[in-house]
């Protein structure tokens, strides 16, 4: 394996991680502030992708489609917060899981009802199509590079929002002591709806960005949701910093594991056996990583208490 290939794979891992971060950021905020386990987060990702595909289909403009994905996911997020999620804050985690799982089923079938069973078309815009040559002669997809930049920009924006603004202050206060911030006269229900809509919008954006290079279909959110949970558990539940670190770590581990393990096993095994064992182990790698992190830091890398 050459250095160039390795660098390209590191970029791929970074891109995968950044995309996971967009999902995990919302999930961890919602858990951190409201103490809610939201399984329906994957549905918001799907809604973002479908909204983007629909708008791109009507207008032919990818950037309008991205905006539409943000707005659609935020609106749906706010709606489910107001109608369903709100009633779950005081409930047991098991009941939250049950109710949000029901939301997954409802959203999946509703999407199928509106858009049909067949996958939708969403392609990357012509401006971002093709490859760029990076220093060192690496050919890399321009679109993936853009995803990395968008993800890092969102991460920076979230840090600023949480550390520098009044809303961010309230979010942090809400994480520390929910009852106290309500007692101090902050309208906690508005704050909750905002945080939920923000998380939903990020999931929707991530769905739209990824939908352009993957398949926009019903049920696309669930595999990502599982990874996003792994990310926030590794990073420490409730911490944005942890979500970023966890996401990059998971992205790199998964991508490099997938490519390196078969090669490593190939040095002392038969090629076909090395492929089988290597890919089997690669698919377990992030869970092994999670177990390892939890063994040394039971609250995750940046988890409090």
């Amino acid at each position: 394996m050459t250095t160039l290939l390795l660098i390209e794979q590191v970029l791929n891992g970074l891109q995968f991680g950044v995309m996971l971060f967009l999902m995990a950021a919302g999930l961890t905020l919602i858990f951190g502030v409201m103490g809610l386990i939201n399984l329906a987060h994957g549905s918001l990702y799907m809604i973002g992708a479908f909204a983007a595909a629909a708008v791109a289909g009507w207008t032919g403009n990818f950037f309008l489609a991205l905006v539409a994905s943000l707005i659609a996911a935020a609106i749906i997020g706010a709606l489910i917060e107001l109608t369903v999620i709100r009633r779950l804050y005081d409930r047991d985690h098991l009941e939250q899981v049950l109710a949000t799982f029901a939301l997954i089923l409802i959203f999946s079938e509703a999407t199928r009802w509106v858009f049909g069973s067949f996958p939708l078309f969403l392609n990357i815009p012509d401006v971002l199509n093709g490859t760029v040559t990076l220093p060192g002669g690496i050919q890399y997809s321009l679109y993936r590079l853009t995803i990395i930049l968008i993800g890092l920009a969102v991460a920076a924006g979230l840090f600023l929002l949480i550390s520098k603004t009044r809303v961010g202050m309230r979010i942090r206060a809400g994480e520390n002591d929910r009852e106290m911030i309500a007692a101090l006269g902050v309208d906690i229900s508005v704050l909750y709806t905002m945080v939920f809509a923000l998380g939903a919008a990020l999931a929707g954006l991530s769905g739209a960005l990824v939908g352009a290079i993957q398949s926009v279909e019903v049920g696309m959110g669930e595999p990502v949701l599982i990874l996003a949970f792994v990310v926030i558990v590794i990073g420490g539940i409730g911490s944005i910093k942890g979500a970023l670190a966890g996401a990059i770590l998971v992205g790199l581990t998964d991508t490099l594991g997938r490519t390196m393990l078969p090669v490593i096993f190939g040095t002392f095994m038969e090629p076909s056996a090395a492929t089988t064992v290597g890919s089997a182990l690669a698919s377990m790698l992030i869970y092994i990583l999670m177990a390892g992190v939890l063994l040394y830091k039971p609250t995750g890398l940046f988890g409090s208490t």
Partner: protein
Amino acid sequence: MHAFRVLGAAGIMALGLASGAVADGHGGKVKIGLITTLTGGGAALGVDIRDGFLLGIKQSGNDGIEVVVEDDQRKPDIAVQVADKMIQSEKVDIMTGIVFSNLALAVAPAATAQGKFYISPNAGPAQLAGKGCHENYFNVAWQNDGPHEAAGAHAKKLGFKNAFILAPNYPAGKDALTGFKRTYEGALAGELFTKLGQTDYAAEIAQIRASGADGIFFFLPGGMGISFLKQYAGSGIDLPVVGPAFSFDQTILAAVGDAALGIHNTAQWSPDIDNAANKAFVETFKAEYGRIPSIYASQAFDTANLIVSAAAKADVKDTDAFREALREADFASTRGDFRFGNNQHPIQDFYVREVIKDGDVFTNKIIGIGLEDRQDVYAAECKL
């Protein structure tokens, strides 16, 4: 009075028993249980199987055939539950419909063990074609290896000398690479198993770029194929690609768009096969559902017509006679000639198709024959 009541109750019971017996006897009727994937990932395939099958039954005009449709959610445990319910409380005679091999492996042996027919419209795992073949198990589609063997033969014909091959890490994925290698016979630049359900192929595409391959074979059904093709098209690599029809099917071509144009893929059916049965099928399917039928719809339509042809010759209750009638395969297949081998899997031609754009619709057209009169290699192990 008391005696009358007892008598009356006995009379009602006797009536109930009698009518029950009549309902059980069917009087020459056939009840079919169709289990397929109608929700969740993979639903597009199940929907096409259901629609193709129901169209075939409807066109037969045979009122004696009743179809019960149930969803398996692509989960083996659900499929087994639904199958048990269909056999025990619905009392179906024939089961069909399953899309995915792992589900078929869970349901088909159980159904045949209880004396029911299982007629597969899609999944053809090696286990049910070789030593595990059963006299009441029929497959109308193919044994899993078939389309991949045709792709291997075509890759050889195209002059691939150093191919890069990849498939998901699950039984049908392994069958795919085995099937391809059986007929391709050339050198391999690389061989990869990806995660089932994987949607990001950046790492694999980088490996393909670095491997020095002169061609690519991939088997990534459904959404996985859409993702791979879109990402491959944006990667700047320009190697010839071949694959089985599953990533170039009508159900997903619209979602892939230009990225699939011109790619050669192999299948036993194509919408442009030139025979009367196929032309009528494509026309009526379009009229009924407003879309071009997929390969899955064609297989289900053939399955329905096979059952209709057998039901016209024999009573399903006479298992031996009905089995013989099925074996004869006396129906007009959308593929043209159709016959079963000793293991009750088809012996058939595999075509090479190319993805084209017809107006603004993406579809396939036949450009050649991949393998002629191909029978699967497992048939030799089957003792039927």
